[in-house]
């Protein structure tokens, strides 16, 4: 029986659908915390006046607590520290200034309302380009020009190649600021155990071990005295992989009060202060030869990284990923890029699903469509001429692309659509005043990369590998303890499928344990489409070791050669005979009958494995068909087709679910979602009726087509796919909108393409024509 490749139901679901899931905010606590936050974007903190008798903690109370200071050793990075509570200065609206502690949430909120914070307001800057202007307000003295890091690359002979171009296509694009908006806001519960002196921090994190390391670093106490639990976590999408300064305060309070304290963020706090992303300006220029072949690519990326640098990735994560992966799936060996991280008086940036790749894919795919138009060829044709089709391929940035199907997925999607019929329909509709458009996005998604990839960024803390411990207990049940920390990805199921195939039991007999630093081995958590590749790889290796041991034991028990033993259906069998022994029995023997093995087999049935692969590339082609209402600027997505290749698929149902969810977020990014600051650095989008994640109405049914190209860089042959949906969708939707609007001479190179932006562009074009 092969479990890998089957769409089995998730082992996670029974608890979650019956209301038995355990989320951080479900825990009772003795004390509740409410943070008082800065109402202004920049200023000197003068005085905090608190109501009589209230417990209010400010930076001055946190004696000896270090700042959160992530480090990059490259790219002229300037380390800036983030205090757990604002220390003398406030740098963004929503920055925690004080923590009110009370017996209930309500009481803490009431007291917080009475805390008076006196701030000498200073001029602020929220826009990255404005922050680059000479004389702009300075956010940190360590970075006098507000540039916190600068990545630069220019391949040899770039200028000579550039000069030989037949056409240069250049444009400016803009990605507006977004919030990952997991449905569960962040929260933490810290509880002190007087008998051991340990604190247990239960929190909404994607990386429990790293949370432990970071907090123990800044509070200076041994990691063995802190247990971090990520219970059921209600989505993360990157927002929960960076350290929340609030968690530091919670642990500090638990130790101080020798009690339990809890904090649950409200939605407003989440929207204004729980990390933002994707706020980027970009200029992209492509040099094409006379055959519309891209020969050189140049880009200038300005990433607004907010007021502080997120831990552990640092704020380099967006600009540096943009620089490294911008050439995408296209064959172009000449490349120049300047990628800057700019600090501003805004909420800090953190990774959000896809990181910079939704933006760079949007840039590159807009470039391809613009070039196709300039050369008067079809958008499909220009992609055919430029997509990489020989592997392995070394990119201009030195990344090695393993086997992929850029062209095949494009053709698969094209065939699924019937583009010719669409073009006819588009023509007919235009004659009737209805404006349909089609947009393509072909992209690669770098996934499952280990420590070598992170080391290339010069990260002081270099994540990458994973450890898995698989053990079979004397009852024959299997436990896999993992360092990854899934929170919706279905990893308990997919890892159980991998193990089940190796050791011959059903997935129901396998429990995957994660999200508890006391139970799981040190690991880096779940982010960057890495868990199935890296943790899955370590799981496979550990399961194979267990398998080898089970076979050894069976060979003793059944008095047969190890090569003749087959595991399956809960049994060890001697091939070609009817001699069998139950695997549960073998497990029992491994502990209780070791004397029989005469020292040839070590006691117990626990194996550990590590995996640290170089990384692989998934790929896909997304096609959106939209209708733009030119009167209202409203965009309706009529059809969305995906042809994707993520290597071997462990569970097709779960894989499809990841793609659906990513695309929905990508459509939100393309059309709806935008965090807006006013001129004074206040946030105008602090509720879910202002910041708009898509609903069921905005997301079309998604048609999925698959190719499975196994990766040589992944021991399970699976490539990651958690982020791909999010990466391709904005580009496909924007290209479709632009195709729909092509009769009007309008180009929209900004996401989200809100009705207002579309109407403004159309109005400007009309005014232009009238002149």
């Amino acid at each position: 029986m092969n479990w890998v490749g089957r769409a089995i139901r998730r082992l996670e679901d029974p608890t979650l659908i019956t209301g038995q899931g355990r989320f951080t905010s479900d825990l009772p606590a003795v004390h509740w915390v409410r943070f008082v936050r800065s109402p202004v974007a920049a200023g000197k903190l003068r005085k905090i006046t608190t109501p009589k008798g209230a417990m209010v903690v400010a930076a001055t109370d946190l004696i000896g607590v270090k700042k959160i200071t992530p480090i990059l050793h490259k790219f002229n990075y300037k380390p800036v520290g983030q205090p757990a509570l604002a220390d003398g200065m406030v740098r963004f609206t929503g920055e925690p200034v004080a923590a009110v502690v009370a017996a209930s949430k309500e009481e803490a909120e009431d007291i917080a309302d009475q805390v008076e914070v006196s701030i000498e307001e200073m001029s602020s800057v929220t826009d990255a380009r404005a922050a680059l202007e000479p004389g702009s307000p300075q956010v940190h003295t360590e970075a006098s020009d507000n540039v916190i890091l600068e990545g630069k690359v220019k391949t040899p002979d770039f200028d000579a190649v550039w000069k030989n171009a037949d056409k240069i296509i250049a444009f400016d694009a803009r990605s507006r600021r977004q919030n990952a908006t997991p449905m569960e806001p962040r929260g933490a519960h810290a509880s002190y155990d007087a008998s051991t002196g340990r604190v247990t921090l239960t929190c909404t994190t994607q990386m429990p071990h790293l949370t432990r390391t970071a907090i123990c670093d800044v509070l200076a106490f041994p990691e063995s005295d802190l247990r971090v639990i990520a219970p059921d976590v209600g989505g993360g999408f990157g927002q929960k992989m960076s350290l929340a300064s609030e968690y530091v305060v919670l642990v500090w309070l638990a130790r101080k009060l020798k009690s339990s304290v809890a904090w649950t963020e409200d939605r407003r706090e989440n929207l204004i202060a729980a990390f933002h992303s994707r706020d980027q300006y970009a200029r992209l220029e492509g040099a094409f030869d006379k055959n519309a072949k891209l020969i050189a690519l140049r880009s200038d990326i300005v990433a607004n990284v907010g007021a502080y640098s997120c831990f552990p990735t640092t704020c380099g994560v967006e600009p540096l990923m943009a620089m490294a992966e911008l050439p995408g799936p296209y064959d172009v060996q000449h490349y120049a890029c300047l990628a800057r991280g700019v600090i501003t008086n805004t909420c800090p940036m953190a990774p959000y699903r896809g990181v910079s790749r939704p933006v760079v894919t949007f840039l590159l795919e807009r470039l391809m469509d613009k070039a196709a138009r300039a050369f008067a060829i079809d958008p499909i044709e220009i992609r055919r001429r430029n997509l990489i089709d020989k592997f392995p391929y070394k990119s201009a940035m030195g990344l090695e692309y393993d086997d992929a199907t850029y062209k095949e997925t494009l053709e698969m999607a094209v065939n699924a659509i019937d583009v010719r019929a669409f073009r006819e329909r588009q023509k007919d509709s235009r004659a009737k005043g209805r404006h349909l458009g089609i947009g393509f996005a072909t992209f690669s998604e770098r996934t499952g990369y280990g420590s070598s990839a992170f080391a290339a960024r010069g990260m002081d803390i270099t994540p990458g590998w994973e450890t898995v411990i698989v053990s079979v207990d004397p009852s024959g049940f299997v436990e896999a303890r993992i360092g990854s920390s899934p929170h919706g990805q279905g990893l308990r199921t997919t890892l159980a499928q991998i193990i089940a195939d190796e050791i011959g039991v059903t997935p129901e007999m396998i429990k995957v344990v994660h999200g508890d630093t006391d139970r799981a081995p040190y690991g880096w958590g779940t982010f960057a489409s890495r868990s199935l590749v890296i943790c899955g790889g370590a799981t496979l290796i550990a399961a194979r070791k267990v398998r080898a041991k089970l076979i050894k034991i069976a060979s003793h028990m059944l008095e047969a050669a190890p090569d003749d033993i087959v595991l399956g259906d809960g049994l060890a069998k001697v091939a070609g005979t009817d001699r069998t022994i139950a695997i549960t029995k073998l497990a029992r023997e491994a502990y209780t009958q070791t004397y029989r093995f005469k020292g040839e087999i070590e006691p117990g049935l626990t194996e550990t494995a590590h995996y640290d692969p170089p990384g692989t590339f998934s790929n896909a082609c997304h096609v959106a068909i939209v209708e733009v209402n030119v009167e209202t600027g409203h965009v309706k997505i009529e059809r969305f087709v995906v042809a994707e290749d993520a290597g071997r698929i462990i569970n097709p149902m779960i894989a499809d679910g990841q793609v659906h969810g990513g695309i929905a977020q990508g459509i939100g990014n393309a059309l709806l979602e935008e965090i807006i600051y006013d001129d004074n650095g206040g946030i105008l989008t602090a509720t879910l009726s202002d910041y708009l994640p898509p609903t069921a109405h905005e997301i079309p049914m998604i048609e999925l087509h698959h190719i499975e190209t196994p990766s040589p860089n992944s021991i399970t042959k699976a490539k990651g796919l958690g982020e791909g949906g999010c990466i391709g969708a904005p580009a496909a939707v924007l290209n479709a909108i632009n195709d729909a609007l092509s009769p009007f001479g309008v180009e929209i190179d900004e996401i989200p393409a809100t009705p207002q932006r579309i109407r403004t562009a159309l109005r400007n074009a009309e005014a232009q024509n009238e002149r």
Partner: protein
Amino acid sequence: MNDRSGITLTINGRDHAITVEPRRTLADAIREDCGQTGTHIGCEHGICGACTVIVDGEPVRSCLMFAVQANGKRIRTVEGLANGDKLHPMQQAFMDHHGLQCGFCTPGFLMLAVGVLEREPDISDEDLLDVLSSNLCRCTGYQNIIKAVRAAAKDMRKG
């Protein structure tokens, strides 16, 4: 703010006699005073629908109702959907169609869909989409939620 009233919330057939401040939301009362934490709170301003429960047969956002308003009313939450070990068809369909990932919005979607289908068993696909667009999910992209609810609607009609 501190004048507490004694009320009785009947949750899944069981009476909970509690005392609450007038400002206490039904969501907080269900979770904190009655210990039924299956109902989740996602926004506290009535947009996301994670806290949806059924009050006297109607799906309600429990963050927008005060606990005192629910005094004496029949409240159903996700914990009461299954009949012992037998899952409600809606729960089964969410599992079968992968209608959940992180599971945080799930109780709200389950109660919304069950509440509406009990009231309107023959609701059209279009109206159902309207109903489902009143809650937010950030993981699934909705497609599988819609599939699950349509499948459950069929099962529920069969009874």
